[in-house]
C-alpha cells in the first residue's frame, strides 16, 4: 500500500473517530433532555409517548432541592468573593516580588488544585472538628474557599504577569503613588483575568461534591449533595430536570465568559492555526 493510500485510510479513520466522539459526548445529554420531559411517572423506554413539564415542576416545588440550591448559591457567592479578594492580594504580591524560591511559592498557592478533593475534605473535617467548629455552613464555607482560591490566584496572576512593567513605571513617574498605580493601571488591565478566575471558581463551588460531602450536616447541604442522596435513593426523573437546569446555568456561565473575557483568551490560544 502506498503512502497516499495510508493517508486516505487514516483521514477516514480520524473522521470516524471525530463523529464517534461527538455522538458519545452528546447522546447522554440528549437522552437526559428527552427524559426530563417524559410525562410518565416511571422510567420507561424511549421515546416517551408524550411530553410534559411535570419533572421540572417537581424539582422546583421540592423544598429539599430548593434549600440545597439556596445554600449552594450563598456558598458560591461568599466563597468566590473571599477567594477573589485573597487571590487579588496574593497574585499582586507574587507578581511584584522577585526572590529565590518564588516559583515554589506559586506552586504552593496552586497546590490545592492537584490534591484530591476528598483528601482536602477529609483533612478539613478532622481539623475543624478538633477546632470545635460545628456550624455546618461555616464548615462548608471553609471547604469551598480552599478549593476556589487557587483558581482566583492562578487567573489573576496570569493576567498580571501579562501587563508590561513599563505601564506601572510610567504611572509612578507621572506622580502616582503605588496605590493609585494599582487602581488605575494594574487592576483595570487585569480585570478580564480576575473575572475569568471568578467564573471558574463559581463553577467549581457550585459543582463540588467530594469536599462538601465530608463537611455537610443534616440541615446544611448543597444542591449537588441533595441530588446525590436522592440519586442513590431512587432514580427519580426530577433529577433529569435538575440536570437540565444545571446545564442551562453552565451555558449561561460560558456565554458570560465569552462576552466578558473571550473564550480564546480564557482558555489560552496558540499562534498558528
Amino acid at each position, binding site marked *: 500500500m502506498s503512502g497516499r493510500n495510508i*493517508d486516505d485510510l487514516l483521514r477516514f479513520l480520524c473522521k470516524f473517530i471525530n463523529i464517534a466522539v461527538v455522538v458519545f459526548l452528546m447522546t447522554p445529554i440528549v*437522552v437526559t433532555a428527552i427524559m426530563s420531559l417524559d410525562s410518565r411517572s416511571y422510567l420507561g423506554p424511549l421515546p416517551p409517548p408524550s411530553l410534559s413539564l411535570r419533572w421540572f415542576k417537581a424539582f422546583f416545588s421540592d423544598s429539599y432541592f430548593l434549600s440545597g440550591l439556596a445554600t449552594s448559591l450563598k456558598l458560591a457567592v461568599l466563597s468566590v468573593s473571599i477567594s477573589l479578594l485573597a487571590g487579588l492580594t496574593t497574585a499582586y504580591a507574587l507578581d511584584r516580588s522577585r526572590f529565590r524560591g518564588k516559583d515554589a511559592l506559586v506552586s504552593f498557592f496552586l497546590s490545592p488544585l492537584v490534591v484530591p478533593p476528598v483528601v482536602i475534605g477529609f483533612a478539613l473535617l478532622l481539623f475543624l472538628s478538633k477546632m470545635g467548629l460545628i456550624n455546618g455552613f461555616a464548615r462548608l464555607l471553609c471547604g469551598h474557599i480552599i478549593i476556589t482560591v487557587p483558581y482566583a490566584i492562578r487567573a489573576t496572576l496570569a493576567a498580571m504577569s501579562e501587563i508590561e512593567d513599563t505601564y506601572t513605571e510610567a504611572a509612578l513617574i507621572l506622580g502616582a503613588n503605588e496605590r493609585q498605580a494599582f487602581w488605575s493601571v494594574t487592576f483595570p488591565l487585569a480585570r478580564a483575568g480576575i473575572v475569568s478566575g471568578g467564573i471558574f471558581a463559581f463553577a467549581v463551588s457550585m459543582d463540588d461534591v467530594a469536599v462538601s460531602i465530608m463537611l455537610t450536616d443534616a440541615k446544611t447541604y448543597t444542591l449537588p449533595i441533595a441530588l446525590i442522596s436522592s440519586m442513590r435513593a431512587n432514580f427519580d426523573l426530577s433529577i433529569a430536570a435538575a440536570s437540565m437546569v444545571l446545564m442551562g446555568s453552565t451555558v449561561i456561565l460560558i456565554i458570560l465568559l465569552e462576552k466578558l473575557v473571550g473564550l480564546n483568551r480564557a482558555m489560552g490560544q496558540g499562534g498558528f492555526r
Partner: protein
Amino acid sequence: MKQNTPSALYLPGGLLFLGLFVLPMAGLFIESLRFYEPGSIGSAADAPFTLDNYAELLKASFAGFLWQTVKVSLLASVVGIILAFPMAYWIARRLSPQWRSLALGFFVTLMFLSVLVRTYALELTFGATGPFGSILREIGIATNGRGYIQVLVAAGLLHYIIPMSTLTLLGTIQSVDPRLNEAAQVLGAPNWKAHLSVTMPLCMRGVLASFLFGFTFSISAFVIPMILGKGRVLFISNLIYTRFSEIANYPSGAAISVVLFALAMLIVYVLTRLVNRSIQQ
C-alpha cells in the same frame, strides 16, 4: 521597583492557606499515625502513635482498590488523548474561524458541565435501566457485570477528559507552524509520515500535559466511580469516604488519604518534569 512589595499583601492568602490547608493536612498526617479502637468514632485525643493504619494497607484488598483506580485512570487518560487528538487537529486546521469558535464553545461547555449531570446522564443512558442498557443486554453484554461497570466508569471519566484534552491539544496544535508539515511533504514524505515525524514530536508537550490533567483528574475522581461504580467498582477516594461515613475509622481514612495524596503528588512531579524537559528540547 519590583522589590518593595509590602509583605502584608501575603497576609490574607497566607492565613487562609495556613488555616484551611497546611494545618489540616498536617493534622491528617498525624491522625494517620494514631491508634484506632474499633467501634469508636475517630481516634482518642491521647491515642498512642502506631504504623498499624499503614500496615493494614499492605494487604491484598487495598492493593486491589489501588490497582483498579490506577488501571481505569490510565485507560481513560490514554484513550482520551487518542480520541482528542484528531478532534483538536480538525478544529485547529480544518474549521473556518466561525465554526472554530463554535466548536470551542461546545467543548468549553462540556468541560464546565457539572460532574453530577454527566454521571447521571451516562447512568440514565448506558446504565442497566437505560435505553441503551437493554440493547446492550440483547447483544450479550452483562450490564451488571464488573467489566461493563469498569468501562462505564472509564466512560464517565472520558466525558470530561475528551473535552479537556481537546482544548489542551488545540492550543498546542495551533502553535505548530503548518509549513513544517508541508515542508516534509514537499520533500517526499506522505502526510501520515510527516505528522508522525514533524507534528507529533512538536505536540509532545501538549500530549504530556493532557495526560497529566487526565490522569490526576481520574486518580482523584469521586463522584464518577461513586455513581457509575454502584459500589462494585470503587476508587481510592470512595474508600476514604466509606472509612469516614460507614465505620468512622478516621485514622485508617487518614492513612489512605496520605497514600492518595502522595500518589497524586508523585504523578504531578514526574509528569511536570517530563513536560518541562520536552520544552527544553
